[in-house]
């Protein structure tokens, strides 16, 4: 009792000092409320946060909001392009900073061997529903342990404007050096798939590229430079194609044009007759995460039919979901070329990352290519 009496004046003391405390408080409250409304800061703050390091397709609110609402969690998204960039960001972080990683699935073993990814249990994920070429590939396990689950896939080939090019030319990898497209080509800036496409055009499988092959690949890469107008990230090359500054995007396919095709029907894409090159995104949980359970739930959500439908059609780029049960309507499936996938998959091989020394030599050649 005495405590209450003592405490009360102390708590109220500031109000004794002002002539009209109620007015002031009302005013302050009003100001605060207005400010909060203006700033759109909601008073209810999510109980938890999940930090995800992902490709830009995971930044779409349409994809992450259902999970945030269901688990009363806030997802912090950091986007990157290219495994090297992800590793660099991880290196600049502290343990516990990150919970979920999306990474090119063929790179997952390399990342896992660095101790970055946590082991996953096959039983937690709908592996049976995934397209089988994804789950049967070698990169799914490291010494029998799974570290990442395939979640989305597509191809590296060519995307183009039907009205500006001869679609027949697009079927061959020789288009890279075709004089008809001088200064009309954009290259999606990802070094090893571009060089692997060159290798495929020479009859060398991506995983068979050796140090001895690099001088020839370098020569061929530099030889295509006169045809190149711009080398850039996904949106830069999209921008160039949409604005008419280039007629085709090399090293791109569905992921650079599918989202645009409903608006601009003249856009199309294909894989090369010489062979298709597949990209496969994987998703996993950080070994250093303090919220592995929640992180796993996020991975499960992304792999669920609902999450897969949203991921396949997300803002940054559309592409095939890994899960064959993904919730998609017919028009979306048509754009994704759902029915043609069997044929594409038959003709394609996954793009895999090379040994560290070859990889680093490739990056040097790429810098030289940019500069040439």
């Amino acid at each position, binding site marked *: 009792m005495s405590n209450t009496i003592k405490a009360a004046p102390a708590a109220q003391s500031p109000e004794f000092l002002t002539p009209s405390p109620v007015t002031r408080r009302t005013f302050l409250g009003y100001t605060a409320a207005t400010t909060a409304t203006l*700033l*759109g*800061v909601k008073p209810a703050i999510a109980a938890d946060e999940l*930090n995800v390091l992902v490709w*830009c397709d995971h*930044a779409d*609110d349409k994809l992450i909001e259902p999970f945030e609402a269901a688990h009363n969690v806030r997802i*912090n998204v*950091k*986007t990157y*392009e290219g495994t090297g960039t992800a590793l660099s960001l991880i290196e*600049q*972080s*502290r343990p516990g*900073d990150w919970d979920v990683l999306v990474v090119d699935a063929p790179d997952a073993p390399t990342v896992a061997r660095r101790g970055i990814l946590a082991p996953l249990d096959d039983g937690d994920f709908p592996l049976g529903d995934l397209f089988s070429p994804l789950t049967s590939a070698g990169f799914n396990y490291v010494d029998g342990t799974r570290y990442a689950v395939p979640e989305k896939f597509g191809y590296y080939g060519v995307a183009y404007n039907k009205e500006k090019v001869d679609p027949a030319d697009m079927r061959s990898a020789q288009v890279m050096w075709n004089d008809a497209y001088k200064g009309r080509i954009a290259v999606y800036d990802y070094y090893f798939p571009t060089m692997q496409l060159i290798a495929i055009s020479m009859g060398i499988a991506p995983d068979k590229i050796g140090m001895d092959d690099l001088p020839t690949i370098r020569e061929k890469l530099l030889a295509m430079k006169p045809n190149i107008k711009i080398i850039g*990230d*996904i*949106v830069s090359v*999209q*921008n160039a194609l*949409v*604005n008419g500054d280039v007629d085709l995007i090399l090293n791109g396919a569905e992921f650079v044009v599918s*989202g*645009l095709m409903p*608006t*601009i029907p003249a856009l199309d894409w294909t894989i090369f007759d010489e062979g298709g090159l597949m990209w496969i995104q994987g998703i996993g949980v950080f070994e250093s995460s303090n919220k592995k359970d929640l992180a796993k739930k996020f991975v499960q959500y992304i792999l669920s039919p609902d999450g897969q439908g949203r991921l396949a059609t997300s*803002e*940054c780029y559309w592409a095939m979901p890994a899960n064959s049960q993904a919730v998609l309507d017919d028009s979306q499936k048509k754009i994704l070329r759902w029915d043609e996938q069997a044929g594409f998959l038959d003709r394609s091989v996954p793009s895999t990352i090379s040994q560290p020394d070859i990889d680093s030599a490739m990056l040097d050649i790429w810098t030289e290519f940019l500069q040439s």
Partner: protein
Amino acid sequence: MFNRISRFSSTSYLLLALLFIYLPVVVLVLFSFQDGLLPVFPFNGPSLQWYEKMLENERLVESLYNSVLVAVLSSLLTTIIGFLAAYGLARHSHRFASGIQFLLMAPLMVSYLIIGIGLLITLNIFGIPKSLVAVGLGHMVINLPLCFAIVYSQFGDHLKNIDCAARDLGASDLSTLTLVIAPIMKPALLASFCLSATLSWDEFIIAFLLSRFDVTLPVIIFEMLRAGLTPEVNAAGTMVFAISMALVAVSAVVMFFNTRNTG
């Protein structure tokens, strides 16, 4: 005759220059009102949908809040220590005065990018996490020389006399500084605050290198640029432009009254 030609060519040059200067701004603003999914020609007529979408974007609105926070706090601190330094240098004949001046102005010679990389490497080596605080410190580094220079250039002999007079009348150091000098310098202080806030508000590369999830508005806009082609970017860019202009207008008004008072 000569005059007429001269006037004609002057006017044409002026108009052409203004056309050149305004072309990208007009296109940026125009396509923020695009009624369609892509910010490219043709223009489909006015719509506010992208502004609505932008204001519904929680991350963007939050980054707006972060940007204001960083700009206000870093500019406030920069203006205070810049003012103190200018006062100290103006009041006393320092042995190292020109050395100190050079030291304080030195960051002007180094690109924002390099200041950012330097701080990034430092954080990394000492294992300090990136944060908005780091961004604010970076902005203080780039703005301190400007704040110092603006305030210092306004310290004339008459202020030295006023300073002496205040002391002779018995004012303490602190009250001379806060009650006499600071009010006289108010226009310069406000101008340096506004300039610094404007630069911090629109700064990208340091914020990009040193922030984690709590990012500033320019970083979010850059990420939007990389995440898809959308007129929402135009809307966000237009908003940043509008707020910058408001800040510039405030400092211009302050400067205007300043020159009228002293001149």
